[in-house]
């Protein structure tokens, strides 16, 4: 679902490894420049590998953590049809997590290691999921805005230079587009509904707008890994370009819904044919990223509880498999 600020965390690439001669690096870059796909067994610079493991595993973790805010409304979905659609969406997210962990495993890091890094707090996930889903309209808004922003980020990843990631993204993007439409459809029903439903929709937009546009990550001037990721064609557009594109597409949708985007400075600029928008509160972004969002601790606790609570089950499965392998031998 949700790549965001994915190039923000993790250690700086270390110095050149001895096997990374200038010639090899030049040849690698030439393959990238020729739009060739890099495959799992191909030679690649360590920094390229690390960047991808970080980005793909953060993307996988985001899918898994993202199941929680939406899961929060599964038991209370207002109709059986909405409940089924939301459940199918949450199930897709678990599935996206699985393909993404598999794509990352092709780079030599095990899923167990990636999950351990998530649970220890070493690995990050998209900050958007550290906001709470307080009403049913939040479910519509997540689909409409959060999945909408995710699609903007992810469509270019289908052309990412790393083959296994690019191919996983093709399938994920198809499903995300369905998720975005279901979100917009919830918003449409609310905006055509009673005064209470319209107020619920507006309130949700007020709370989710700014966190959604923060999903594209810091402004280009502050984005420390962007230039290298662009050169490696892991990233195709800058954070600010994608953010602008998202705002340009989304504001008319809000107008169509009869909702007001909570930005007094929002204005269409005839000359540039883009919307101008107000200043983003980057302090909030960095606070949530640092662990101080409304639900950071709760989200992690749910994952840790599931992992710890399931330890006896995994041990039993292992013991059973070993016992029966021994018997078969």
């Amino acid at each position: 679902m949700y790549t965001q600020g994915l190039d923000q965390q993790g250690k700086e690439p270390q110095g050149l490894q001895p096997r990374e001669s200038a010639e090899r690096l030049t040849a690698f870059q030439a393959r990238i420049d020729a739009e060739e796909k890099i495959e799992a067994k191909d030679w690649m610079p360590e920094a390229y590998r690390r960047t991808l493991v970080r980005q793909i595993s953060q993307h996988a973790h985001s899918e898994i953590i993202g199941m929680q805010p939406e899961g929060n409304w599964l038991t209370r979905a207002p109709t059986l049809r909405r409940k089924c659609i939301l459940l199918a969406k949450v199930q897709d997210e678990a599935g996206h997590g699985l393909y993404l962990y598999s794509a990352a495993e092709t780079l030599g890091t095990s899923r167990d290691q990636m999950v351990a890094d998530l649970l220890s707090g070493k690995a990050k996930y998209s900050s958007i999921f550290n906001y709470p889903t307080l009403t049913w309209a939040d479910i519509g808004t997540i689909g409409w805005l959060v999945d909408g922003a995710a699609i903007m980020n992810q469509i270019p990843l289908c052309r990412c230079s790393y083959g296994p990631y690019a191919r996983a993204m093709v399938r994920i993007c198809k499903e995300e587009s369905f998720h975005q439409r279901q979100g917009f459809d919830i918003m449409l029903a609310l905006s055509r509904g009673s005064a209470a439903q319209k107020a619920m929709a507006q309130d949700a937009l007020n709370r989710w707008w700014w966190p959604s546009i923060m999903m594209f990550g810091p402004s280009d001037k502050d984005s420390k890994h962007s230039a290298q990721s662009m050169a490696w064609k892991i990233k195709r557009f800058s954070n600010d370009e994608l953010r602008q594109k998202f705002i340009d597409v989304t504001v008319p949708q809000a107008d169509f819904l009869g909702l007001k985007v909570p930005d007094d400075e929002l204005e269409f600029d005839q000359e540039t044919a883009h919307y101008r928008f107000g200043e983003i509160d980057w302090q909030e972004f960095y606070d949530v990223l640092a662990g101080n969002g409304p639900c950071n601790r709760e989200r992690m606790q749910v994952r840790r509880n599931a992992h710890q609570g399931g330890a006896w089950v995994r041990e039993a499965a292992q013991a059973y498999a070993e016992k029966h392998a021994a018997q078969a031998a």
Partner: protein
Amino acid sequence: MNNEQALFKYVVRLGDNALVLAQRLIEIVADGPELEEELANANFSLDYLGQARMFYSYAGEIEGEGRKEDDFAFRRPDREFENVLLVEQPNGHFGDVIVRSVLFDVFYLLQLEALSACSDDRLAEISLKTAKEIRYHLRYGSQWLIRLGDGTEESHGRVQDSLDQLWRFTGELFDGDETDELVLAGFAGPDLDKLQAAWTSAVAAIVEEATLALPEDQWMAGGGRDGLHSEDFGYLIADMQHLQRAYPGLNW
């Protein structure tokens, strides 16, 4: 009660069992021991929900008073739900969830197989489709029960306890009433005595392979099919119906 009314009531009960179990399973959508188990759980919940929708829609057609699937799910008080008590039991740990599913799915599959040959074509058709899904759920559940029973000392103890605790809700599955009798007589529906014999031997086989002990005969709870539920059930219904109750009569 005439045959038509009995069929209606019977189909609503099928919907209630499926919906209440789905509702329990989605409470633990992000709480599995592995990601694959979370995916399976979401998949199974989706199947039960889909089944509930088919049963409720069909019940509405039989009744002919214009009630739709959501009227059955969201606009009936908890005393009107006639699911068996087994499916409403709180989740507990993974072993409890698996034991609850296996005990119910063995019954449900036998019931659906019998209904696939009943004389009501629509019910037979829905049951045939549903049986395919439940056959897979049961394969998954029984494999897990075997792994847990025959896994470690801890897992063996835990699932034996799950089995002992949930066993008292299995008597109700076969405790037929007038509705069951009319559906048996009028539509060649399931014969509960035959179902019980088949259930007992199927469950015994799984329990044996899982190296567990069948609980001794004990007192059996009942009442679900008279709308007499456990205290927890009121919360399940309140939670599920929250929006429809708070904002009645709106489109969502």
